[in-house]
């Protein structure tokens, strides 16, 4: 019984939240890694792209809610998601036309593009705050829990409860579907193959007749979809606040770099590595250990390696360790 209690406490406080968080990071990191692989620069505006896509979705969710349109037990935001993606695609294509195309034509160095993307980041930052304001916005509706703590305790008779939020379930399922679609697209379709060819060797790809502008456009469209989905899932699961998306930039980049920049599989693995490290290192293990250890060995302290304030320090440390010992990342991406 104690073993079960320990397992449930571990699931409730570590495994479930870290899995949902990992899926959100993975989707964000996929966008970063695609841009790095194909357009060859680190896009600092990615966090705010997520915020923009999520914002459009939030606005349309409110519209749907005011019309009385719901999605049953699922959040209405899922219905508004396609519109959010369209809005985000519009924004990214516009930015590409107005900003990035100019630098591409100049064959600007990646480091210049990085700085350019920071400028874009600040502008998007401002646009989002201007339209929806800097505060918290609530847009989640529908059933809150798949299993709530109380139901779980009643069902199993255990002391510990397990909560599984609807948003956590949706996050993981959506992430799996999106990743499957992305890999199918990259590996099986003509456009996907041309993108990979362009990523591997730009000159060779141009010689074989691939239209670079088309590759760039398709990349932005996919990135917009990924960013919006990641942004909406994060907002649904936690809360929508423009500033938090800016803060997400660090763990997202850490995920992409740990997995190997430019490698989609690495981005996913990196997302989960970062999420699980952040949660397990800052978790206080006392509760789990008390169930597992014989009484005389039970810990007095919290058995917490780092205070939760240092969550971001964990991402930073992993980033440093990877860059020092394996600069190409776990899955052999491009070196930074």
């Amino acid at each position: 019984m104690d073993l079960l209690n320990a397992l449930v406490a571990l699931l409730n406080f570590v495994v479930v939240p870290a899995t949902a968080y990992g899926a959100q990071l993975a989707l964000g990191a996929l966008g970063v890694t695609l841009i790095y692989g194909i357009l060859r620069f680190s896009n600092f505006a990615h966090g705010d792209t997520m915020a923009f896509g999520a914002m459009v979705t939030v606005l349309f969710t409110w519209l749907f809610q005011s019309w009385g349109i719901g999605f049953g037990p699922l959040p209405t935001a899922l219905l508004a998601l396609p519109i959010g993606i369209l809005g985000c695609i519009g924004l990214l294509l516009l930015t590409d036309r107005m900003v990035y195309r100019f630098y591409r034509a100049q064959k600007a160095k990646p480091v210049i593009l990085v700085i350019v993307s920071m400028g874009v980041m600040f502008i998007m930052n401002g646009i989002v705050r201007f339209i929806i304001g800097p505060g918290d916005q609530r847009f989640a509706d529908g059933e809150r829990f798949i299993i709530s703590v109380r139901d779980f305790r009643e069902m199993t008779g255990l002391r510990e409860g397990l909560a599984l939020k609807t948003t956590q379930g949706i996050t993981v399922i959506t992430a799996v579907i999106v990743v499957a679609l992305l890999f199918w697209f990259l590996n099986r379709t003509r456009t996907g193959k041309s993108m990979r060819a362009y990523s591997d060797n730009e000159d060779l790809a141009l010689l074989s007749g691939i239209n670079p502008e088309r590759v760039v456009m398709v990349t932005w469209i996919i990135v917009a979809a990924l960013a919006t989905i990641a942004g909406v899932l994060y907002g649904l699961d936690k809360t929508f606040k423009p500033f938090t998306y800016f803060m997400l930039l660090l763990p997202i980049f850490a995920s992409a770099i740990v997995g190997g920049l430019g490698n989609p599989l690495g981005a996913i693995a990196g997302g989960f590595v970062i999420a699980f490290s952040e949660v397990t290192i800052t978790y206080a293990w006392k509760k789990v250990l008390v169930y597992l250890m014989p009484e005389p060995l039970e810990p007095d302290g919290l058995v917490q390696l780092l205070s939760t304030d240092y969550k971001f320090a964990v991402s930073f440390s992993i980033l440093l360790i990877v860059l020092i010992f394996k600069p190409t990342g776990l899955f052999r991406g491009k070196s930074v």
Partner: protein
Amino acid sequence: MKKLLMATAATALVAGGAFAEDVKLGVILGFTGPIESITPHMGDGAELAMKEVTDSGNFLGGSSVESVRADSTCIDSGAATSAAERLITSDGVKGIMGADCSGVTGAILQNVALPNGVVMVSPSATSPGLTHAENEDNGLFFRTAPSDARQGVIVTNVLQDRGFNEVAITYTNNDYGKGLADAIEAEFEAAGGTVTTVAAHEDGKADYSAEVGALASAGGEVLVVAGYVDQGGNGIVRAALDTGAFDTFYFPDGMVGEKLNEDFGAELNGSFGAHPGTDSEGAEIYAGMASEAGFDGTSAFSPESYDAAALMMLAMQAAGSTDPAEYKTHIMDVANAPGEVIFPGELGKALQIIADGGDIDYEGASAVDLIGSGESAGNYREIEFVDGKYETAGYR
């Protein structure tokens, strides 16, 4: 011609100043930031007192009082300091009703009020660190809210009267949160209780599941959330309820607000808390006056704000001057016995009594009684959640 114009203008200015004065009082509160949902009721409270004094016509030979609002942001000391600087140097206020949160209040006091010699009366800064036992404030700082050292005692009494002896504490990582958490921990342990952990949380994060995980590990029957209702405190409660880590909470003053009813409702049934408040006659009168004026007079710190503004104006009347250096010594006199007891809505009468040379004991909306270096002795309203909203459970 030019000289003539200037001379006329100068005469007009002098003439304007010589008769009924237009006294300006600063109202510096966090109209944006973590307690932005309660500050409008506080500002309205202070302005209600000013309007009452102006309308009575008894103030310093018919002078009127005007409010100048400024934003303390509650958390950004730099912004608060420059806002207060502007109030004094450019608007020429004679006293400051504010600030609200302890950190910015301390910053304004040190950087602006002390150097400029302006009186500050805070309605809501409760950090024990602001108590000036050695007159470090030159007698310029007062508060109509009690120090958190007192709140520590209240929290302990409420918890133990309800039979809870083991609590976990989480606090918002700033002067207010730290001061309050320390006070609660010290008092609760001194009274024989167990505090399993005292952990900070940062405001403005999207997700508090990690913080709650650590608190859950430490355990405890009740979670004391010494945070802000519009910020991290709210997130902590959400995450604690979702993960089933705690289902009973204690809410200190910064957490008691309508938002709890809106966001959580019945999920909080059985939780409780306390914030400064009183069942005195004054509180009731004030609530009536406030609803007539179109705001909520039972909102946290709104009565204290009315009293803070009223005290300054009554002291000015007693000193016969708007000079802070002169009226600062009169604040304690008008606030405490002896004298005729004054309730909200009776400011005109009080001004008349003072003008006639009489004594008053300002009771006001929050049963003001200033002790020590000029802070309220403190009355608390205990609340508990029944059927999805909080109700008054008693007064202490």
